[in-house]
């Protein structure tokens, strides 16, 4: 019996060994010039939920929808606004009316022409109360929307809104396929039809999603013929797949980037990239707690925490200190704010000034007989946050603060702790949107249960700056506003801003034309190519 099994095993190994040769037919050799063809295999942790952008809320769906659909505008590689489906646009002098001139000759993947009626339909789809979308708010401020001719679309706002323009970067949906139908049961959720560079081919649930280059794409046919998103839920497996050649693109962890990809073999087969991610991790203080209401205490905690130590320990140095809620190197980021270097003596002095002294000699600071003890809550399963917490715990103990760590399952963490404001301090992260409007996170009106200013930060000047920031269109003027906000935050330390991690994507070396830019590496994806002689998949 066991012999038979072994025989079967050997047979299968052998058979499959030959299999690889037939499945992968090397293409005919030519010079390393841009050539059409080949397939890129991308790894994704989670399966997509729906391929209708209006309903999708997860990143896997977002990645695919980004290749299948277009918006009117988008950010270019330098994070400046450029036209996509809109050739150009005008903004009225009062900043209230936006007129978009649409590209002519654009067609949907099914051949139907794209017109301003599709844009108008998409707008109505978003604001329809029957559409279960989380994105309706951004269009609620629109006063009127009209399509005066097939290639013009015009919206008027009640009040000027700085984020109005980029809100039209959202995917435009095809009217002729969705009009008058129930959006939640539309077949487009399973098989999307857009105007984008890639057409949908097939979706095997939990296994893969296949896209194919759109030969009629208005910016030219993409070089890479096929994009296959392979769903591989485990990061370790994904990394093994990459090494075995079963993936061409994935995001590495700091450990993989720093320790497991140094072999000459790996360097020959792959190109690694590294640039700051649009995200930061922070320690947020709940200001409903009396001991966090004194800003000297918050400043002291920031001095007591060694941020560089966290970056070295948790990210293996693959990240940088955060000084505020913006990404270093982008226009809203103020590089000159007060920094909180590691300085335990200063931390102790500030705490003493605020009345925290170790009067009973137990090593823990106390004030009015109450020892300085609090709990840092974070979500379970996020290794970087847990480790940061452990490092912070030790450093705070050194200045006499007793910290407990608590990891809680995500849904319970939000429902029981964050939303009702029922926590002392928390380690969490935010993504950094390209537009600096941080109204929802920092304005004092956003402190109700479930809103994002859950630390209860209230500062009248910040409120006023946030309000004018989102109504101002001039970038220089906005820069001044957000620079001032960062100065106040550096002084107030509502969060101890910990770090901005690096994004660490890796791409198989046969792909050329990859061009790192402030916007990442995916901005020119349709220009990536594999020289004909190196193409791996013939079909």
């Amino acid at each position: 019996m066991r012999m038979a099994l072994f025989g079967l095993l050997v047979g299968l190994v052998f058979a499959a060994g030959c299999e690889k040769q037939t499945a992968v037919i090397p293409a005919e050799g030519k010079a390393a010039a841009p050539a059409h063809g080949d397939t890129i295999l991308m790894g994704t942790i989670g399966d997509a939920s729906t391929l209708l952008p209006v309903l999708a809320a997860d990143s896997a769906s977002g990645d695919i929808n980004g290749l299948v659909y277009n918006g009117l505008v988008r950010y270019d590689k330098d994070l400046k606004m450029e036209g996509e489906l809109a050739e150009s646009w005008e903004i009225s002098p009062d900043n209230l009316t936006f007129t978009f001139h649409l590209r002519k000759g654009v067609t949907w993947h099914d051949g139907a022409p794209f017109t301003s009626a599709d844009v108008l339909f998409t707008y109505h789809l978003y604001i329809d109360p029957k559409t279960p979308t989380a994105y309706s708010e951004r269009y609620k401020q629109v006063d009127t929307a009209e399509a005066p001719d097939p290639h013009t679309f015009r919206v008027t706002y009640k009040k000027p809104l700085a984020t109005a323009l980029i809100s039209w970067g959202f995917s435009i949906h095809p009217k002729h396929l969705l009009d008058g139908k129930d959006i939640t049961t539309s077949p487009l959720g399973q098989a999307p039809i857009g105007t984008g560079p890639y057409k949908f081919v097939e979706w095997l649930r939990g296994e893969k999603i296949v896209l194919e280059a759109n030969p009629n794409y208005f910016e030219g046919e993409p070089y890479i013929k096929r994009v296959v998103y392979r769903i591989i839920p485990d990061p370790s497996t994904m990394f093994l797949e990459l090494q075995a050649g079963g993936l061409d693109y994935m995001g590495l962890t700091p450990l993989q980037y720093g320790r497991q990809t140094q072999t000459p073999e790996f360097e020959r087969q792959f190109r690694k990239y590294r640039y700051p991610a649009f995200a930061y991790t922070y320690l947020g203080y709940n200001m409903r707690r009396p001991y966090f209401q004194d800003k000297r205490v918050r400043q002291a905690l920031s001095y007591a925490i060694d941020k560089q130590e966290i970056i070295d320990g948790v990210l293996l140095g693959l990240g940088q200190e955060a000084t505020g809620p913006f990404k270093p190197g982008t226009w809203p980021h103020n590089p000159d704010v007060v920094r909180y270097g590691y300085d335990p003596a200063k931390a102790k002095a500030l705490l003493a000034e605020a009345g925290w002294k170790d009067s009973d000699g137990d090593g823990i600071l106390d004030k009015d007989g109450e020892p300085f003890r609090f709990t840092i809550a974070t979500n379970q399963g996020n290794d970087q946050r847990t480790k940061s917490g452990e490092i912070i715990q030790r450093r705070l103990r050194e200045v006499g603060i007793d910290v407990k760590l608590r990891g809680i399952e995500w849904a319970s963490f939000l429902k029981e702790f964050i939303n009702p404001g029922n926590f002392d301090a928390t380690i969490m992260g935010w993504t950094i949107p390209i537009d600096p409007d941080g109204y929802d996170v920092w304005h004092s009106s956003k402190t109700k249960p479930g809103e994002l200013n859950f630390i209860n930060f209230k500062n009248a000047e910040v409120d006023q700056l946030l309000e004018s920031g989102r109504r101002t269109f001039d970038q220089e003027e906005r820069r001044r506003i957000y620079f001032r906000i960062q100065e106040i935050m550096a002084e107030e330390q509502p969060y101890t801003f910990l770090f901005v991690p690096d994004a660490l994507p890796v791409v198989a070396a046969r792909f050329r034309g990859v061009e790192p830019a402030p916007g990442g590496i995916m901005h020119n994806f349709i220009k990536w190519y594999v020289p004909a002689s190196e193409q791996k998949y013939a079909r």
Partner: protein
Amino acid sequence: MLRYLAKRLLMMLPLLLGITLISFVVIHLAPGEPTDMQTDLNPEASIELKERLRSQYGLDDPLLVQYGKWLGRLARLDFGTSFSQDRRPVLQKIVERLPITILINVLSIGVILAISLPLGILSATRRNSGFDRITTVLVFLGFATPSFWLALLLMDGLGVRMGLFPIAGLKSIGYEYLSWSRQLLDLAHHLILPVFVSAFGGLAGFSRYMRSNMLEVIRQDYILTARAKGLAERAVIYRHALRNALLPVITILGLSVPGLIGGSVIFETIFAIPGMGKLFYDGVMMRDYPLIMGILVIGAVLTLVGNLLADLCYALADPRIRKA
């Protein structure tokens, strides 16, 4: 016999009702709701939007009303539509995951039985021999080895370094272009590591059951009788002892019927296999109530049916029970 069967089937109904009520209440007690994925930490999600989404999903009804509605649909064999963004029928989601889950489970139970039953019998008949000791150590090693660890080691060793096996998934890229026989080979090639890993941990249970049952039976008087009347040892063991020793194994097999559709999250995650375990886990994480309930109901029905089948098989194998 028929009356017995009807009675057993009838008794299942209140049991099933109780199971569904308890699970329905329990999953709704867990903090978080299906709409959270869209609204949590989303700067654009206003409180009013959250309320609107809740009412669209019918989450603003009292819990018992929700249960009543769900039960009403279930009575018409309608499992409802999933609360995840795709809003597809729950049954469809389950059915597309079933074949691969059942395939892997049947294969691995097959491998387990094929190896562990002979192993158990041999260990019992050669009790305390070198063979017995070595297999004992081996099967317990398998039992104690974490499957994710073994899987990653095998993937790294046999997959990445030696290139013998594919790492994850069930099909090669370009599977669609292969002939059906090549497709079958490709699938089998992808299945070897997963089936091996899932079977390896299961050897201990069955081989130990088999061994202890066998030891128990060998001590019985009728085995002594069989030996006394001069039967060959072969006949004693395989004709007289084995049939009796297999009885408890049947029970365990019956109990593993629901296990056929239940996958393991860890295992499926490591091998990137879209099976039931991952479906259920993701459903729970997203609080996709209709999907969770659908899988629980099917699991409950199969458990009850599996029990019944085990009892029936018992009766078939053992005339004493048939008469009583």
